[in-house]
Structures are given as C-alpha cells and as structure tokens.
C-alpha cells in the first residue's frame, strides 16, 4: 500500500518535472512563472513569442495607474488575451476576448512592487503566446483605498460611461471607454473588493464585437482603448461585482 502510494507520488513528480523541462525557460526569470501558468493559463501549452508586444514604461511613476498596451495582431486570429503581473498580490489584471475587434488593448493598472508584466495570448490551437517586460515599481498601488471611495464620487456617478470614437486608416475605428468605478482591490483595510467584472461591446446593429473581464488591479475609473473593425455607434453593456449594470452608447 505504502509502496504503491510512493510509486504514484514518484510518477507525479516525474511527470511534473518532465513538463517543467518541456517548457521553455522564462526570459524574464520570474520566481513564480510556473504558478502563473498553472493558476492563470489553465496549465496549457505556453510559448514565449516576440510577436506579442507589451508596452509598459520602465518604471511605475504612479503605482496607481501604470499604462500598459498589448498588441498581438502579428499572431493573426486570437481567442483571448490575459494580462498578468506575476508579483502583484492579485496577478491577473484582465481577460479580453477580442472577438471581431483587433487583438490590441490599452489600459492602466495598479502595481504593488516591481514585477514582470505579461500578455498571454491564446490562438485557436489552444497555445498561449506570451510576451512581456519587467516593470520597476516602489509599490503601494494595490493596498491603497480608491480616491472615489473617500470622496463619495462613485455614489453619484457609479458605472457612468463616457467615451469617444476615432476613425482609423484601416476602415475601422478606435474606441476609448471610461467607466466611473472605484475598482477596489479588497486589499485596503476595511474596503471589500468591488470592481467592474464584465464589459461587452456591440456594433450599431447589435452584433457582438468583444468581451472584456477586468479584475481588481485595473485602475480606478478605468479608461480602455479598443480598436474595432467597423465604424459607427458602439453599445456598451456590463456589470460590476455587485451586479450593478453598466450601459451606454458611444456615437461618432
């Protein structure tokens, strides 16, 4: 009985070791990359891929709002983009299913300490293509209460949507979207997690364009940049963690 259990454990250890060996070494040398793959990429196949471009500044001038943009358009068709800051207390920043939109997104997020920032981009074959960069930060972004929580801003304007559209040379358009929301992480004393959970975009005919799932690290009153395939009004629907609806229509 004991010998059998030992054999099972040994077998498990060997297979884990074999899988770790198969995986290419992390170019950013993160101490927790394997855990990120297991927790946030469903343990699926991963390849480091220069075609996934992640723009972050070298250091976080404002740990409450670090700008990041991802461009995976060199990969062709993309099912999902997940944005991960390995060493943040809450690593997963967002999951974006671009659908008919370009596999590009821009936003700002909160950072607690220096960390790799990665975009993992899943292609239809199920492989995660990963690109990223180190961000230097002195911290404090995730454990600070939101400003809106202190000022009461969000009591009056919670989930208010604003935005604008710009035509692009490729025949599509750029959408910038801002939602008034505290995006509390739950890590500041006495303030529970409270963030925008789902944002869906549809075109003027009601056809779905893209779906975004932000998580706790996205900055307060988030601004998102999307590149959409066609021009015209965009309908925004969604909700936050408490089920409060988000609704708006951004017209050219």
């Amino acid at each position, binding site marked *: 009985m004991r010998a059998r259990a030992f054999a099972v454990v040994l077998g498990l250890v060997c297979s884990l070791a074999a899988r770790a060996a198969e995986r290419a070494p992390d170019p950013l040398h993160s101490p927790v990359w394997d855990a990120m793959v297991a927790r946030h990429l469903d343990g699926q196949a991963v390849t480091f891929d220069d075609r996934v471009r992640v723009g972050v500044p070298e250091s976080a001038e404002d740990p409450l709002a670090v700008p990041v943009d991802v461009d995976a358009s060199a990969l062709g068709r993309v099912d999902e983009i997940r944005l991960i800051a390995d060493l943040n207390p809450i690593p997963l920043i967002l999951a974006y299913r671009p659908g008919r939109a370009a596999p590009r997104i821009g936003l700002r997020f909160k950072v607690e300490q220096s960390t790799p920032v990665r975009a993992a981009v899943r292609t239809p074959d199920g492989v995660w293509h990963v690109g990223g960069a180190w961000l230097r930060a002195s911290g404090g972004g995730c454990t600070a209460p939101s400003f809106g929580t202190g000022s009461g801003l969000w009591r009056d304007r919670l989930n208010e*949507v604003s*935005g604008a559209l710009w035509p692009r040379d490729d025949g599509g358009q750029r959408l910038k979207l801002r939602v008034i929301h505290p995006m509390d992480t739950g890590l500041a004393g006495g303030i529970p997690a409270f963030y925008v959970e789902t944002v869906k975009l549809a075109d003027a005919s009601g056809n779905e364009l893209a779906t975004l799932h932000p998580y706790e690290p996205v900055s307060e009153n988030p*601004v998102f*940049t999307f590149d959409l395939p066609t021009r015209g009004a965009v309908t925004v629907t969604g909700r936050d963690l408490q089920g409060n609806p988000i609704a708006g*229509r951004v017209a050219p």
Partner: protein
Amino acid sequence: MKNRHGLIALALGVSVVSTALVAGPDDYGLVPRAVAEGVWVVEGARESFSRENGGNIVNTGFVATDDGIVVIDTGPSRRYGEQLRAAAARVAPGKVARVFVTHAHPDHFLGDQAFGDVPILALPGTRAAIARAGEKLSANLYQLVGGWMLGTEVVTPAVDAVPGPVRIGGRDFRLLALSGHTSDDLAILDERTKTLFAGDLAFLDRTPTTPNADLPRWLDALDTLQRLDVRLIVPGHGPVVAAPRAIVQTRAYLRWLGDTLHSAAGRGMDMNEVMRLSPPPEFASLSVSREEFVRSVVHLYPRIEEESLRKASTGKP
C-alpha cells in the same frame, strides 16, 4: 511600519557597501560659486535622483547681508543641508539670517534640519504641502538615493513667506508668490544684483519635471518673471545664466509638451503610444529628456485624455 524598517535596513546596507567601495561617499563635494556681488550658487548635477549623486541634482544658493546669509533651498538630505551650511561658512563667514524654501519638492527642503536654529520661510501652501506629504516624499527619496539620506527628517518651514519687498540685513529682496510647477512656487529677486532665484519655475539644459504641474499657470508665471528687471537667473536645475534664456527655454518646452499631449488626446492616442513619441531635437538634447517626457505623460495625460471623452447616452440604440 514594517516597510519603514526594511527601508532603513536597506539604506544602511547600501551605505556600508558604498563606504567600502568609494572614499568619502557621503561627501557631496559642494562648491559654492560666486555669481554676483555677495551671491553664491551651488549647482547640482543635471541628472535624475540616483545612488551615485545622492540627490544632489538641485541648485541651492545664498546671499550675504549685514545680518548673515540668506539661504535659498536646503537640498535633498540632512547631510546636504549640513554640508551646504559648512561650505557657505567658508566663503561667507558669520551667521545664517534666514532660509527660504521655494517649493515642496524633496530636493529643495529635506536639508532643513541643518538650519534648525534659523527661521525657515516658505509660502503657506508650501508649508501645508510639506506638512501633509513631506514624509511620503522623503520615503520616496530614500528609495531612490539610499544611504545619503540617513538621519534625514522632515522639517516643515515654520514661518510664512509674505510676497512683496523685504529687507534683510540691509539688503533688499523681492518675494514673488507664483504657481504652476507646483501649487505654490516662491521666486526670490535680489534687488542689488538683479539676480533671480527662480526655483523650479525655470530649468535650463535639463528637462523640466511635472509631478504637480499646471501648465497654463506655469506659463503665466514665466511671463511674470520675464517682465521683471533681471540680470541673472538661477534656475532650480541647470546652469546660472544671463536673463532670460532659462525662462525662454522652459516656456518653449512646456508649450511643446502641452501641445503634444493635447494633440495626441485629440487623435485618440493611448497613453503608451504617447510615451513612445520622441521629443524634437531641440528638447531631446536637454538632459534626461526621454525619462522626464515619459513621466510627464503619466502626470498630465490622464486629465487631458478625459477631456476628449464625452458622457455616453444611456438609452438603447
């Protein structure tokens, strides 16, 4: 609290290591340079804060009067303040009559401790800002420059600087309360030599910094300064120069920065796309231009971007 201990331990570690490697690491090597009759300036490196420069990236100065010297800004640390006072005493022996702090940025007031026996003056808004945010600014600077900061504590200027003419030890000065680089910027004119201590309202050959900037107000302040009868300008960072070059260059940069950010927002650019823009040669040649431009995008773009968005209608299409 835990963080604070970690920081001190880190600072100690760095100090020990650098002592072992370099002789006299805690010596800023401050050399006051006489720029006009009874006016000395101690010029800092045209760099960003680093463990190498210990935060000495700032210009401080002093002016001799019959009652002792008037010190303008105290530098980034206790050690800097003490060395500034010692260096000043070598060229202008006697007491210190007054200290003025031009604004609430850490490289300008964290040497206050060395002047604990002297009245330290600042604009009311500057005093309030140091009382409110001084500790945080000091902790940030510890992280950036390390052991140079040992023993530095925030001393909030205790006395209000009142705008207008003031006579100290028989020498006439004019105090100007302006804003734009921060919410409260003090500029000091020595009437005898027409030397203007512009604080950080003027930079020269070093890219201006904008963490608390209001560009339109800053441009107004520069107009006010340019209307003064001034011979020499001591910018907050960069070389001392005949008027009005530092003002003209700072104005040109701020106009370019504001125009660039507004035009980017008007075209729907994402913040990172803006950061990837390159300043034109005229400004790329200023020191730390890339670094400061990226920082300025972080400081200023979110608000400008917000102005480009309109409230969405809530109805269905």
